[in-house]
């Protein structure tokens, strides 16, 4: 098992270097000059411009700039934002809990509904429930996120008035960040109605962000279950006289989980990407919105650092998934 873990870790490093290279190159390929953007409409003198070019190190060869960046990153220094002058690291972790909270809720929503739905669909293959569920999932998967979000806002916030339109909590409540998670902080604050307000603000963004993963997980669970249900060991389980609930829920599901966990892991990447749209629509103060703003400002360190941190998150999740494979199916541990 230890060797398995180490071999997984070994693949981590090249990916990490690759991501720093891509994020570094990506923002520099975009047209636009951060110094001119900083100057704004007033503009600046050529002297001041040249001074800033030297200050930011843009006069040095591109490889030297990358080397500086890479050595900085390896020492834990992601640089400071050109705009706010604050360390990227601090800005990221001030906003990240909001995104994480939303993503976790969306993921719980998607797994809690998608997994049972897929299992039940597979057990009722070809019947009404299966067909309805799978067509619904296809619609959910194909729907543009922004349109779905607006639709929900119109119906539930506009017409019915059940949920708030935007933000993380009503302005009535104010309390300090403890964990950065609104659900937890509102509970700690002990203010009446704060927690309910936080939950009500979370509902629509969670549904919007969780819809695509939900559809993917439901469909993947169904197809994995169908494949597994045709296996010889399922026939053995039935020959042992086990009840159907145990056969489907234990013997089949455990084997079907491998592909399902893979798509769950991949969905995490989609979630963080999808968070950019969802956060923009619901004015959710997370890293998605922050990244979009930084790209418009050509804030190189923020875009580089943000991309890198998101990539590392996705890598960590996928590493966890790899380790989970071994836990679920002992056969994989050996390889």
């Amino acid at each position: 098992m230890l060797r398995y873990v180490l071999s997984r870790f070994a693949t981590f490093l090249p990916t990490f270097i690759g991501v720093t290279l891509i994020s570094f190159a990506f923002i520099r390929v975009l047209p636009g000059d951060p110094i001119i953007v900083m100057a704004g409409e007033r503009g600046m003198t050529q002297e001041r411009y040249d001074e800033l070019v030297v200050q930011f190190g843009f006069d040095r060869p591109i490889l030297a700039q990358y080397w500086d960046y890479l050595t900085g990153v390896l020492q834990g220094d992601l640089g400071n934002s050109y705009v706010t002058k604050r360390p990227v690291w601090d800005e990221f972790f001030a906003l990240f809990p909001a995104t994480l909270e939303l993503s976790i809720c969306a993921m719980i929503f998607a797994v809690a509904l998608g997994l049972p739905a897929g299992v039940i669909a597979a057990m009722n293959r070809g019947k009404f429930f299966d067909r309805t569920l799978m067509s619904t999932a296809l619609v959910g998967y194909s729907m543009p996120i922004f349109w779905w979000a607006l639709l929900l806002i119109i119906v539930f916030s506009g017409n019915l008035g059940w949920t708030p339109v935007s933000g993380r909590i009503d302005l009535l409540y104010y309390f300090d960040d403890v964990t950065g998670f609104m659900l937890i902080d509102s509970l700690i604050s002990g203010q009446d109605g704060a927690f309910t307000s936080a939950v009500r603000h979370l509902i629509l963004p969670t549904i919007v962000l969780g819809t695509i993963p939900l559809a993917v997980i439901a469909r993947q669970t169904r197809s994995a279950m169908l494949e597994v249900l045709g296996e010889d060991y399922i026939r053995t389980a039935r020959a042992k006289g086990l009840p159907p609930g145990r056969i489907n829920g234990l013997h089949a599901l455990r084997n079907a989980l491998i592909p399902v966990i893979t798509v769950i892991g991949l969905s995490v990447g989609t979630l963080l990407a999808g968070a950019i749209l969802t956060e923009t629509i619901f004015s959710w103060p997370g890293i998605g919105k922050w990244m979009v703003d930084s790209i418009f400002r050509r804030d190189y360190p923020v875009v580089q650092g943000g991309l890198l941190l998101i990539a590392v998150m996705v890598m960590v999740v996928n590493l966890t998934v790899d380790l989970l494979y071994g836990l679920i199916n002992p056969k994989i541990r050996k390889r």
Partner: protein
Amino acid sequence: MSLLRLRNLSVEFATTGGRFRAVDQVDLDVDKGDVLAIVGESGSGKSVSMLALMGLLPWTAKVTADEMIFDGHDLSKMSARARRKIVGKDLAMIFQEPMSSLNPCFTVGFQIREALRIHLGMDRKAAQARALELFDLVGIPDPEQRLKAFPHQMSGGMNQRVMIAMAISCNPKLLIADEPTTALDVTIQAQILDLLVRLRDETGMGLVLITHDMGVVAETAQRVSVHYAGQKVEEQPVRPLFRSPHHPYTSALLAALPERATDKRLPTIPGVVPGQFDRPQGCLFSPRCPYADDHCRKVPPAPRGPDLGLARCHYPLNTDERLAS
């Protein structure tokens, strides 16, 4: 009353090309301590008839039988829930591919204890003790360690022993072995067959051995039921069957044994088992039978009397020999 009594068992599969009859009016009896071999080529419905008995066929299969009586219970009239109390406990089955028949996600110990806990309500400790005893019984060395192993960590022969241990864990009255040695090495084959026969001797359970290997039949079985294209074409005790087969198909099967070949070339049966779309009108074996005439091709034969091995044939073989003796 026999332990297992099947009368007029038929299985039809709903396919896109219409109904396909995989098992056609089969009668079978097995007594306690009996070893019945069911032989026939691939596609003769041997496995399907036994899977139907176990209730393991997919929903596309329609099983009908006048009687499907096991140990006094008519399985065809029972609810699925009531049937699960018998299947896996008194009526057990092992399969052709031991490697894929065990769940790769669980240790073999878990899979054995599971059956014990579900059927006999044993607690963890009792189930563990019984599992050790079973591993000992089926000849798995170092049982304590092996119980913790996963199926992929063991050989095919060991896994088949695990399957057997699992099948006999609740002292079944009847064990169905569906080509248990096909996927194994020849040396291991003999060991597994010896084990099955020894277990039969020790526990007195009935044993149904599905095979297409006549050598296996000769060594282990007491009675042989020959199946062809879903029908039972002949049934006899093993010695008379080998000495004087009545159905031309049985005779052809025996002639194809390498030990019996007199020529340089091994005799074969030309053609293949008829499938869904090329079922002949009369006797199902008539297109491949060297003795068939127009009567055979038009009129399906009914089973003959017990003295002719219940042969489904208009012109049974070796009738003189019976008269002579």
